[in-house]
């Protein structure tokens, strides 16, 4: 049995590229939040109503993509360890746009802000959306605080931007199929 380990009990951990860094390092913060997002996608998938296999498949694909993204976040760009990494699929963001369009087809046009909530699974999708936005902020911070020219991080940021949009639409879609209308914000 192989176990990847590093002595983490004193507040440091290893990047995939080998550096020992504090556990609050900007890369650890970023992929930690990505891990949190991935877990929320798992919650949503676990709570999906029957008959939503296509959505379940989509979510599993997104979870796999987040693993790829996390590996890039855990690796400094000048490291030869990048040879082990799989680039984000070139069509990843476009694929999300197609899924957003497909879910949106059954939704009424939105003319006002809506309150996050409704059915539990939809409420979790809203939570996932906000965590996804936080991930995106961490990635943009990482891009700015490192060399700023990491092409893969730029692709990941675009992917997260689309994924948060997807989760917003998914929340509305799930409320719709479960018979709960959007709750509009009342000033």
């Amino acid at each position, binding site marked *: *049995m*192989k*176990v*990847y*380990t*590093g*002595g983490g*009990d*004193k507040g*440091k951990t*290893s990047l*995939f*590229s*080998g*550096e*020992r860094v504090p556990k609050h390092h900007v890369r650890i913060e970023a992929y930690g939040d990505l891990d949190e997002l991935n877990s929320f996608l798992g919650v949503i998938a676990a709570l999906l109503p029957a008959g939503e296999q296509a959505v379940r498949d989509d979510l599993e694909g997104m979870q796999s993509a987040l693993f790829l993204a996390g590996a890039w976040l855990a690796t400094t760009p000048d*490291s*030869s*360890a990048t040879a*082990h990494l799989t680039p984000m699929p070139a069509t990843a963001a476009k694929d999300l746009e197609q899924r957003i369009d497909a879910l949106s087809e059954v939704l009424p046009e939105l003319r006002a802000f809506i309150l996050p909530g409704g059915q539990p699974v939809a409420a979790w999708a809203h939570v996932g959306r906000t965590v996804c936005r936080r991930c995106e902020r961490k990635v943009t911070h990482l891009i700015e605080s490192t060399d700023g020219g990491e092409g893969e991080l730029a692709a990941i940021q675009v992917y997260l931007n689309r994924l948060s949009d997807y989760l917003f639409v998914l929340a509305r879609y799930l409320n719709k199929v479960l018979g709960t209308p959007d709750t509009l914000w009342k000033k």
Partner: protein
Amino acid sequence: MIGAGITGHTVAITAREWLNGETFVLGCGRPVGFGFQPGQYVTIGYGGEEREYTLISSPAAPELRFLIKRVEDGRLSGALAGLALGARLRLSGAKGYLTWQTTDRPAVFVANGVGIAPFVAMAAAGIAGFTLIQGARTPSGLFFRHELSRAAGRYVPCLSGTPVRHLALADVHHGRVTDYIERHLVPGVYDFYLCGSRSMITDVTLLLDRLCPDARIYSEAYT
């Protein structure tokens, strides 16, 4: 019976060579198209049991070789220790990330027990000039020390369970690998490769955090 959980290859055992009373090298055929990097491992399956073992052969070698410790009550290692030549095993593709990184930083390999396996493969592949700190309790646990000492720029065997008066080996450090590192390693910016027991990996990592905070550490622990 062949392990069913692995998708990959089926290979026959071709050789078994005991290195001491509990550790042996298992040889098997190499499937067509099977590729790997030195340092990687595969999952071996037999009789419903599966376990990961690191390749010790060169990527150019016609056969695959593994360094295996027969674990007490270990169902797969016990079977692999006793199966007849020609018995067939399931083999996954190569996996793992403890592979050679091409950098300007000097490389230091630290291993104990069968954790030496990835470094045997690297040496077999022609990687040389590294520092190797190899730990074992007794001289018979310093697997492949002759081959490794030829490839290494500096080779440090560390014996932790053998009284000094019994040592016939020259230049042996009497103590654990951590003891050697703490007393003798010149602090610097290295690439450390650690492989072996979890306790060794943890102890060395925490030690290096203190002694060589700018080093890079790649590690793989055996359980």
